[in-house]
């Protein structure tokens, strides 16, 4: 699998990225690639800059230095047409869903379809039904976000992110704040969509169970190191990593314990 992946052109290139707010450096010199069709998990402890990295990758934050290239386009390009194309090829599911509270589920999902396509209302309604089926929420089109549970909101957020058939989907903390059953259902959903549609997924999470379930490759950030301390398969990292910080994370042990064992 990893052999085949490495031969393909990366879909996202992060090159020597440094994020700095004022004089506070979040991380520096971060470089890695994301290959088409894979599920890459960005992980790390609280405050390690996972979400910041994701927001740089979707172009919401401007990098202090370095760049991010998604499908051949620099996410900070000033070329409006290219940026527009990129926005349509990238879907983002936010941590809290970020659904529009005044719109129903169906309206939330159909908003991008209405804005960017010439589809008829009937076709849009049918596509919305199909997307709701994808995220196992058939029949929920007329619900308002406030009437849904946390897990449902995240699934609607994912359905909205998938509305324009993006090539890359970013998912911020899919299992945070969910019960184990709902969390594992969401993991399965991510795997199914990735397998079925071939969508490249970049997932930010620190839930170990989720990471082992979905990740083929992980990029691990660390607060102290201000950057990437490990890239690779999560199981291999758990069993063979030498860095105590990586071991502590994957074995769910205090850092002091891991150092003593070593």
């Amino acid at each position, binding site marked *: 699998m990893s052999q085949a992946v490495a031969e393909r052109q990366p879909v996202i290139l992060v090159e020597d990225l440094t994020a700095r707010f004022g004089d506070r450096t979040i991380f520096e010199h971060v470089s890695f690639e994301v290959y088409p069709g894979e599920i890459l998990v960005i992980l790390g402890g609280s405050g390690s800059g996972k979400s910041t990295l994701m927001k740089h990758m979707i172009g919401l934050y401007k990098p202090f230095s370095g760049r991010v290239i998604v499908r051949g386009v620099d996410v900070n390009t000033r070329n409006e*047409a290219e940026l*527009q*194309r990129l926005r*349509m090829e990238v879907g983002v599911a936010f941590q809290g869903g970020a659904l529009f*509270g*005044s719109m*129903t589920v169906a309206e939330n999902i159909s908003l991008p379809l209405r*804005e*960017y*396509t*010439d*589809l*008829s209302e009937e*076709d849009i309604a*049918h*596509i919305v*039904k*199909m*997307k*709701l*089926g*994808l995220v*196992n929420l*058939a*029949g*929920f*089109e*007329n*619900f*308002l*976000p*406030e009437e849904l549970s946390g897990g449902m909101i995240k699934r609607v957020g994912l359905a909205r992110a*998938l509305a*324009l*058939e993006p090539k890359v989907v970013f998912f911020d903390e899919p299992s945070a704040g969910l019960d184990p059953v709902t969390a594992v259902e969401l993991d399965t959903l991510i795997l*199914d*969509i990735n*397998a*079925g*549609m*071939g969508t490249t997924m970049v997932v930010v999470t620190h839930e170990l169970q989720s990471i082992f379930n979905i990740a083929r490759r992980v990029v691990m950030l660390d607060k102290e190191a201000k950057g990437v301390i490990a890239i690779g398969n999560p199981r291999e990292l758990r069993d063979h990593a030498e860095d105590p910080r990586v071991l502590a994370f994957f074995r769910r042990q205090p850092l002091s314990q891991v150092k003593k064992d070593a």
Partner: protein
Amino acid sequence: MSKAGSQPDLSKAFSVQVTGEAGQAVTFALSGRVALDTFPALKDRLNSLLTHYSPASLTVDLEQVTYLDSVGALLLVELEDEAGARGTPFTLANASEENQKILGIIDREALKAAPIKEEEEPGFVEKVGGASLSFMDDLVSVTTFVGGLILALVNSVFHPLSVRWGEIGFYMRRAGVEALPILGLLSFLMGMVLAFMSSLQLKQFGATLYVSSLVGIALVQELGPLLTAILVAGRSGSAFAAEIGTMMVNEEVDAITVMGFDPINFLAVPKVVASMIVVPLLSVYAMFFGIMGGLFIGVSLLDITMFSYIAETRKALTLFDFVSSLVKSVVFAAIIAAIGCQRGFKVRGGAEAVGTETTSAVVAGIFLIIVVDSIFAVALHYLR
């Protein structure tokens, strides 16, 4: 996808090759993109071909398809349903492994699932009923809130240490000190306009000197308190509603309740007390600047000396006017702040509700100010 700017010609993005005779076994060989961007054109094409050939059996060949996404897969499922409805046997041929996966994730049950909750457009009677009910609810909630507020205020009088004086100081600065520049400018201009417009009329009777008493009485009895109240409703009533409303959305008000504080006491009382202290002062300030505006016009354009202008103004005004206006201002302040807080507590849901209730706070606040002002006008007429 024409809305997104220049797009490649979609007629070249896909093609359909038909083999077979009408009414017999027909094969549609699709090639190119079967995806979101080609969906409407391809759907039209396939439906018209299906009608034209009305085949005895239909095979759709996917061998030449270069790209299939879930919307494209949906199109194939729709085509199958359409063929099924016509009683035509349907087969998909040469679907690659990837394409089969995408076809596999389309949940056919979900496509037919009826909405769990129907969206209903209420009729006229229902709308009238709904509006009356929500008016009654509003009345009840305002009354309950005012009751709670009065209790909390009375309680504060007996337990002055339980009042959050720091907060009161903060809101006095917010609603009062920070409003000074705009209120000064507004009332100065108002006084100028009033003096100028009335002088045009009074000049005809040679009574220009009475501009001073006209401006003085108008500002002290009506315009000063009213202008101040409307400005404070716009600046601070809305801010109170938005602040408490956002706290409702973020569950901060719930947190206040479970920590054992009374939300009205904790959030509303400081705002109401601060407004009641600061609005009368702002009114006096507005009266002063309004009269200054009139004085400026009187001295510069109407040949009234400063001494006679001030003397005339003093003659026209009584202490009763002044005190009744201050009382009126206190009442206005209580209304504005209370409505602002009450609308804030009414917020349920999200960002949109905060906007609605903030607007409502200003509209209801100004409306009530005008109503109460008319009541005062009648009452003071008989008291005088």
